[in-house]
């Protein structure tokens, strides 16, 4: 069973969390000026990373806060956890 470290509540079981997909995707500031292709890209296009992945999680059955995590999608190992708004930490092996 995976353990995830909520930045507020500390180490908790995976079952308390909801995965939120890829992180650090900024919503366009002026959606009305976006072309269909650009908006579709914002909504749907994701990296599908093999390796180091920066992603969002929510402590759904705890404090219900969103936060960010760095996970290796090959080994499923979590490498870092950080609060929303904090810069992404550099992780060894990150090719991006």
């Amino acid at each position, binding site marked *: 069973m995976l353990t995830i470290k909520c930045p507020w*509540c500390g180490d*908790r*079981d995976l*079952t*308390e969390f909801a995965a939120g997909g890829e992180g650090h995707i900024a919503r366009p500031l002026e959606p009305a000026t976006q072309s269909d292709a650009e908006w579709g890209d914002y909504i749907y296009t994701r990296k599908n990373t093999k390796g180091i992945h920066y992603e969002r999680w929510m402590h759904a*059955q*705890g404090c219900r*806060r969103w936060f960010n995590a760095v996970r290796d999608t090959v080994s499923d190992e979590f490498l870092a956890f950080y609060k929303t708004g904090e810069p992404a930490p550099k992780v060894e092996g990150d090719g991006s």
Partner: protein
Amino acid sequence: MVDLTERVSALAAIYETGTFGATVDGGPSVAFSERRPLSIVHVAGKPDDKAFSDGVKTACGCDLPTTPGDIATSGDLSLVWLAPERWLAVCPNRGSGVLEAAFRDACGDSGAIIDVSHGRTVIRLSGANARTVLMKGAPLDFHKKVFTPGRAAQSAISQCGTLITCPAEDTFDVYVFRAFGQHMWEWLTDAAGEFGYSVETPAT
């Protein structure tokens, strides 16, 4: 005519005092009771906003706990940390809307105060095996040195969101939404069956 203002426990239909479960040497090692009637108020606001933090202190007599999972107490009132900027104030029933009004008067517009007294069922477990019963249900670290008196955590038991607090040694309160109260009671008492358990009269 049904009096709709009278508070009726969500457990009223199934609550039965006595001794149940396995017969073990030394008698039952888990005691259940419903905590009622309580006043419960959900408090939200910015802890670094002085108007809010001072207001909370005026309303309930203790400082906001800002360490995750901590409980502050003042007399018979507990102020439980739920999440960043979210707390739950719990005390024996002070009358309809009284505790909520105390917070609203003291905090003004600096906080969001909601009376949830009618919306929660609170089940108290105590005894030598109370911790073991909870360990069957919630994926939390229940080690005696970790989940100590004065600590609280939100988690899930049987997929129901719960708040679990430890007010005293080997004593735990399980808070669930009222609609889940009966299910949680049945789940917990079933889990305690192997140890033998008693059901005491409800108290605050």
